[in-house]
């Protein structure tokens, strides 16, 4: 008896009215009513269902259960209070009946009567008997019924959801309609995002728990007591003064670095050539953002701050490990001792290479005179370089020791310094590359211009095209002569250019690998990845449904679970912006520049103009 039989009676009544007159289309073809019910309330005592009704989707999102005894005025006051705080339209949706022992008849009548006090269309009645696996649900429309006195019943579909997980999760991508502003508090989201939105905005309702001495007794996920973590609360309290202190220190540092002294001519140029300065500036920006005294504006900003903080901490931890490793057992001394012989060895290898080029490299016959000139020029260059290195050798260990200390700023800084030291040590290779490239470039332009003369054509600068031109006989004679000379000298120059370009590309590749590692440490969102691993419901890509045990004639029950974001999407959404040192050229333009001998600058520096 009780509500179960009442619903059977009502169903019987409907069947009878079906015999009398055909079913109005609404009862069969009307939208199915979806009732989202929190799993924490399934064991709650009987009471009123409180939540939000979304008419466009015909869904009722139940947020809490109000238990007996209550005074209707107080319930309405509470709802108005929460509605003002959260901008979510809360109403009384219906009744919840949990029969623990024998079904109570009087309760059934009482619950029917409540429908008249809190009028809401449709009025939802959920009932669960302890011991029975199945629920009974009824949703009645009193006003829109075609037969007066007989309410229309909708089909009800029960969807269970875990309130805590839905509250804490963040749905990607956020579905914001284009005509709503970001600050519009009553903006309605589409579809399932509306459910997430409703639950997350109703935090004011979930703050009321059983220890509050409220006249109205609620049941929801936090009704046993507010959930919080001591560490998190302490961190929140401590973060205020710490942020203030660090922000002051950082502003002092930035004021010092903005001083006019650093703008004197050689310093900005040198600073732009070294990647260490770029990396330091990047990390400084991260620090200012993390320790800024402004609160994060949204979950995306919060994640970004957290990612930056974890990345900084990991960087410093790895840097300190490297520092301890370097300074233990006199590694710095060993490194300094090994550096000079290594530089000598590289210079010796280069000398052998030049001797080889000055002979008959790979069996090719070079032009003897040009060969000797170029070879001797480069050999003298190497000699100068080695003398400078030997001049510096007493100070190397001290310099390395102080530079090694910079590893405490982070592993990325140490790697950038390594890349810069490599660039400095191979500076002579860079110089050789520039000489070879310029020579080759001149030769190629000369050859192309004289080739046009050979055919009787000329480059028209005004019209940017090749035009025919009549040359004098002596012009033709000298031009042809020069053309022949240049073309016979081409193999020698081309070979030198090829060899030094390959060496330069090798150095650039090594530097590129180091930069790639630095970029990886800079941009990987470790906090998001950790969150996805340990608390997958926080980052939601969507939802998934599971059909629970079903019996014909009973309402359909579904379990809604959070579908977490895949790892690749996590990295893609939350990656931090890097320094911007990306390769400037595509493969096609690189090959073209190599062929014509134009100089290659492999990385786009921040101050460069876009092509």
């Amino acid at each position, binding site marked *: 008896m009780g509500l179960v039989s009442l619903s059977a009676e009502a169903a019987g009544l409907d069947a009878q009215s079906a015999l009398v007159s055909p079913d109005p289309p609404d009862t069969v073809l009307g939208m199915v009513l979806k009732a989202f019910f929190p799993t924490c309330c399934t064991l709650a005592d009987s009471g009123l269902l409180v939540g939000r009704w979304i008419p466009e989707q015909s869904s009722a999102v139940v947020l809490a259960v109000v238990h007996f005894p209550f005074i209707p005025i107080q319930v309405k006051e509470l709802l108005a209070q929460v509605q003002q705080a959260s901008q979510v339209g809360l109403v009384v949706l219906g009744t919840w009946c949990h029969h623990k022992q024998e079904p109570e008849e009087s309760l059934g009548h009482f619950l029917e009567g409540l429908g008249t006090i809190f009028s809401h269309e449709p009025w939802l009645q959920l009932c669960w008997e302890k011991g029975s696996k199945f629920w009974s649900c009824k949703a009645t429309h009193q006003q829109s019924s075609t037969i007066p006195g007989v309410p229309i019943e909708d089909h009800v579909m029960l969807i269970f959801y875990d309130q805590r997980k839905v509250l804490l999760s963040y749905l990607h991508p956020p579905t914001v309609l284009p005509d709503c502003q970001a600050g519009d508090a009553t903006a309605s989201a589409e579809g399932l995002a509306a459910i997430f939105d409703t639950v997350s905005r109703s935090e004011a309702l979930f703050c009321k728990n059983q220890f509050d001495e409220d006249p109205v007794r609620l049941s929801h996920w936090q009704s046993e007591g507010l959930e919080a973590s001591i560490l998190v609360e302490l961190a929140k309290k401590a973060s205020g003064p710490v942020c203030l202190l660090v922000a002051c220190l950082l502003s002092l540092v930035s004021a010092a670095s903005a001083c006019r002294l650093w703008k004197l001519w050689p310093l900005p140029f040198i600073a732009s050539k070294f990647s260490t300065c770029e990396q330091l500036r990047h990390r400084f920006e991260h620090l200012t953002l993390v320790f800024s005294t402004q609160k994060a504006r949204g979950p995306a900003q919060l994640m970004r701050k957290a990612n930056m903080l974890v990345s900084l901490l990991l960087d410093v931890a790895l840097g300190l490990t490297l520092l301890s490793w370097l300074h233990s057992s006199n590694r710095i001394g060993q490194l300094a001792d090994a550096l000079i012989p290594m530089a000598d060895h590289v210079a010796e290898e280069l000398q052998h290479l030049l001797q080889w080029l000055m002979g008959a490299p790979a069996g090719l016959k070079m032009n003897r005179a040009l060969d000797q000139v170029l070879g001797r020029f480069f050999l003298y260059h190497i000699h100068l370089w080695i003398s400078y290195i030997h001049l510096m050798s007493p100070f190397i260990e001290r310099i390395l020791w102080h530079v090694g200390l910079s590893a405490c700023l982070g592993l990325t800084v140490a790697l950038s310094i390594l890349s810069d030291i490599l660039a400095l040590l191979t500076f002579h290779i860079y110089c050789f590359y520039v000489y070879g490239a310029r020579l080759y470039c001149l030769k190629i332009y000369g050859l192309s211009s004289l080739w046009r003369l050979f055919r009787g054509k000329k480059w028209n600068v005004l019209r940017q095209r090749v035009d025919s031109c009549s040359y004098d006989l002596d012009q033709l004679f000298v031009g042809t002569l020069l053309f022949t000379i240049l073309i016979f000298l081409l193999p020698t120059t081309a070979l030198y250019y090829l060899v030094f370009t390959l060496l330069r590309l090798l150095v650039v590749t090594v530097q590129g690998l180091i930069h790639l590692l630095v970029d990886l440490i800079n941009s990987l969102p470790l906090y998001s990845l950790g969150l996805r691993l340990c608390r997958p419901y926080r980052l939601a890509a969507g939802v*998934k449904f599971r059909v629970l045990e079903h019996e014909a004639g009973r309402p359909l029950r579904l379990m809604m679970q959070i579908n977490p974001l895949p790892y690749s999407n996590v990295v893609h959404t939350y990656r931090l912006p890097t320094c911007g040192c990306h390769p400037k050229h595509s493969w096609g333009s690189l090959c073209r520049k190599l062929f014509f001998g134009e100089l290659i600058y492999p990385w786009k520096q921040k101050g460069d103009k876009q092509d």
Partner: protein
Amino acid sequence: MEEERSFSDICGGRLALQLRYYSPFCREFCVSCPRLSLRLLTAVTCTVWLAAYGLFTLCENSMILSAAIFVTLLGLLGYLHFVKIDQETLLIIDSLGIQMTSSYASGKENTTFIEMGKIKDIVINEAIYMQKVIYYLCILLKDPLEPHKISQVVPVFQSAKPRLDCLIEVYKSCQEVLAHKKATSTDP
């Protein structure tokens, strides 16, 4: 109400289709793919190990044999976890949406849920796949802001690849559920 029928896929392998009617507006279709065949597994393992043994006789390095064992084990685990799909399920719930689940041989499940507001229709499409013409069932999605255009086509049962008779069963069932949605929606 549950029903099971057997069909075949485009290569001739046996498929089992399970139809579950929970209610007039909620239906589930489960297509089970053929299991991992022992013959193929044995063949691949033998090939890899023979090749490793051949290399071993050339190089006299026993690391090659252990490496071959590792490669076989890791390859099998990776195949079961990332490649071999055992079952594909389509759950259609009127007024909520359509959910597609793929279960891998290692137990991993990959679920995608599409809301009803984004679904325009379910159709059977023809496609030219190498030298064959095959039929596949797909869901047409629309942008809620532009209901007349099709923004995306999502194919269903991609690894099972059932034949037209199986697809027609699923199609008819889905259309019955969607007919109600079309009757209540305002789209032309």
